[in-house]
């Protein structure tokens, strides 16, 4: 199969960046998008050019490392799917694809499709944990957690930290990411003692990182590969207001 790519090239954060066009033949519908870029890069390298910088690691949709915008779709034209789990059979033979990085003020572009998502790490650092040292834990079954609550906590905990929620939001808000972690920990009995500080500290950090505010459009949930629910945001707001 054949595709034409308009792919974002930007040498560094200060560079303005632009689209560069490449024609690819010999593609297979079973290829994933990163595999297509591997193929493109070999072609570029062999003709003496500078390969496209892009990141991906697990290529299974779990590490959160990949993520580009393809024809305006965050991650993928498929719903709830990471870029690495998107295969060329999702496109038509002969189609033209625009591929560019996730864009948000808090995620500066490093090079081409690579972005800096360390703001997420700093949000976690500010309170996204349960303050237990190694060795302090009590017997696992001495804390009973109802099945439904455990499942609900898992739903929130499943976030892969990819940043798609931020990239799709017109305000570049990180509320879905932040609320998922706040709720995962605070709804569990183990995380309850720190719940009040946690939500406060994480929201303060989120704002300090330059993420926008949430106007509750629900766009984030639509692109989230783990289908994290927007109700997490409502729930977090509740925790913030009423402790």
């Amino acid at each position, binding site marked *: 199969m054949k595709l034409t790519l308009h792919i974002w090239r930007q040498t560094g954060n200060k560079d303005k960046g632009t689209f560069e066009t490449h024609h690819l033949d010999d593609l297979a519908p079973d*290829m994933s998008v990163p595999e297509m870029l591997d193929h493109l890069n070999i072609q570029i390298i062999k003709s003496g*050019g500078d390969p496209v*910088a892009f990141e991906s*690691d697990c290529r*299974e949709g779990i590490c959160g*490392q990949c993520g580009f915008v393809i024809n305006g779709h965050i991650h993928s034209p498929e719903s709830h799917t990471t870029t690495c789990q998107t295969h060329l059979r999702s496109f038509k033979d002969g189609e033209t694809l625009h591929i560019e990085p996730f864009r948000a003020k808090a995620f500066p572009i490093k090079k081409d499709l690579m972005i800096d998502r360390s703001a997420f790490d700093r949000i976690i650092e500010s309170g996204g944990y349960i303050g237990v040292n*190694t060795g302090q*834990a009590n017997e696992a079954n001495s804390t009973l957690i109802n099945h439904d609550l455990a499942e609900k906590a898992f739903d929130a905990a499943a976030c892969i930290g990819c940043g798609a929620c931020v990239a799709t939001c017109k305000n570049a808000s990180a509320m879905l990411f932040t609320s998922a972690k706040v709720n995962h920990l605070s709804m569990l009995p183990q*995380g309850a003692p720190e719940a009040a500080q946690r939500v406060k500290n994480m929201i303060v950090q989120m704002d300090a990182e330059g993420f926008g505010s949430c106007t509750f459009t629900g766009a984030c949930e639509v692109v989230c590969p783990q289908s994290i629910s927007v109700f997490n945001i409502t729930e977090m707001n509740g925790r913030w207001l009423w402790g």
Partner: protein
Amino acid sequence: MLNSRIPAGPLEDKWTNYKNKAKLINPANRRRYKIIVVGTGLAGASSAASFAELGFNVEVFTFHDSARRAHSVAAQGGVNAAKDYQNDGDSVWRMFYDTLKGGDFRAREANVYRLAECSMELIDQAVAQGVPFAREYSGYLSNRSFGGVQVSRTFYARGQTGQQLLLGAYQALMRQNAQDNLTLHTRHEMLDVITIDGKVKGITVRNLDTGDITSHACDALVIASGGYGKIYYLSTLAMNCNATAIWRAHAKGALMAAPSWTQFHPTSLPQLGDHQSKLTLMSESLRNDGRIWVPKKAKDTRNPNEIPENERDYYLERRYPAFGNLAPRDISSRAAKERIDAGCGVGPMKNAVYLDFKHAVERLGKEVIAQRYGNLFTMYQKITGMDAYQEPMMIAPAAHFSMGGLWVDYRLMSNLHGLFVLGEANFSDHGANRLGANSLLQACVDGYFIAPRTVMDFLAEETPEALNASDSFEQAAKASKDEVEKKLNALLNIKGTTTAEEFHKQLGRILYTKCGLSRNGKDMAAAKSELLELQQTFYKDLLVPGTEKDINFELEKAFRVADYLEMALLIVEDALQRQESCGAHFREEYQTPDGEALRNDNDFCYVSAWEYLGNNKYQLHKEHLNFEFVELQTRSYK
């Protein structure tokens, strides 16, 4: 020369005895000692956080852009612990025995026992961190069973157990990073170990964003860099997994143990074409309800649904009636290869077998199957475009886990003074074959519970010096930086025509066909010369674009492939030397009449530990395995 330092006493008391005697450092003095940790997977993150909690001065390096992306994140199935919550007869002893037997009696008894002993505490720790393990309606923790055992001791968080455990460790790490005694460096790759008079004193790293090369001093170095199964190119590992950290330590004197013991996972998705960069694992739990078969007739091209029951060969059920589709990984993978080699493989490349849910759907209904495996069926459809409710899945064995790694003693310290190796990077607990759900456990136990004791015990005898680097360190660091620069420049300056990725693919092909699921002397001799030739071509024809002082993924890959090329030769050497079959190491010359592995306890009851001599030359050292508490038995799952 190899002293495993196993503490005296009965098996059940060894770890307690060790802890009782281990030396301590006064809390106020701990911050004068600097520990460097390489890796933020389960082993690295958990140890680093624990060291910092104790008050040591910790510096952590990972090549990932965030600690949360380490490959532990991809583990699906679960983590084992001998809690015996199911009252089904589990115990520390049974878990120890299952693990030792699963590893075909090629691991150290004392280490394996300690793994089982510490397993319970790990579940407690993870729950306290907020890991949302599956629960019953009553609120108690749920368990399931995994290949190779007859009890239910596996704890799981849907199909994302590794992710949830890693997030627990990552959050503990980030909590310490916010405080004074831990500093995390992301996007930094360790490229050299600095030794002075045979003692490890620091590392040299490259900043992957700027290309800057810097050296860092330490009083103890912990390498937790994960597995190297990616050497086979196509594997279930993440794209960036590599052996450079352990290989560089090896080149500086650390012994490499059993490098050829790689586990091939039986339920990966098969390779579909040449473009493929990795193989996706389908959880082994599918084998609880799916039945594995191939057509009886070779080269049968019929659609699977058109093949009648009496023309199907359910070969695992036929060969291993007691365990059937749940036979251990090495055995299941090999049985698949045997059928594929006999021409009965299925799929476009004839390299797969069927995993069929037809009978399970008939027995339990589609709804139950969807409840149990719905997410896996969706994932299968996403990747292959096929519907596993309508036709059987296609699966194939794939390189998955490295039992081999740097040799360590009971303290997890290598023969190199001051170097500790944790998690998949070491050779310690799994022998010649790892049981499912035991490696998340090992990575965690190494990091949370063992290293904090043993590293402190070690440091207590050392004078802290890393924080005021001496002249001799500065000199050694300069030499190390120069060497790294020289190597990087050499790779950049070849300016040939073939990319690192292309070399890696060729390397993988040689290893898969000649030193993979099964091996024989003749093929391996051929592999050796092919590998030597490939290595020579690599240094003549490698093409790396760009410069050293920029983000340069091709340069990163080239450095890793250069190390992989050396390691591949040792892998073949190791497999050639071991003239027996054991666990995942199947030498075709050594098998029983019915095709099972034929172990040779008289001549090979040892761990092969290799010393690096340079120029693709290695010296073998043997650690003899003494079985004091169990009797060696032939593994049978029939």
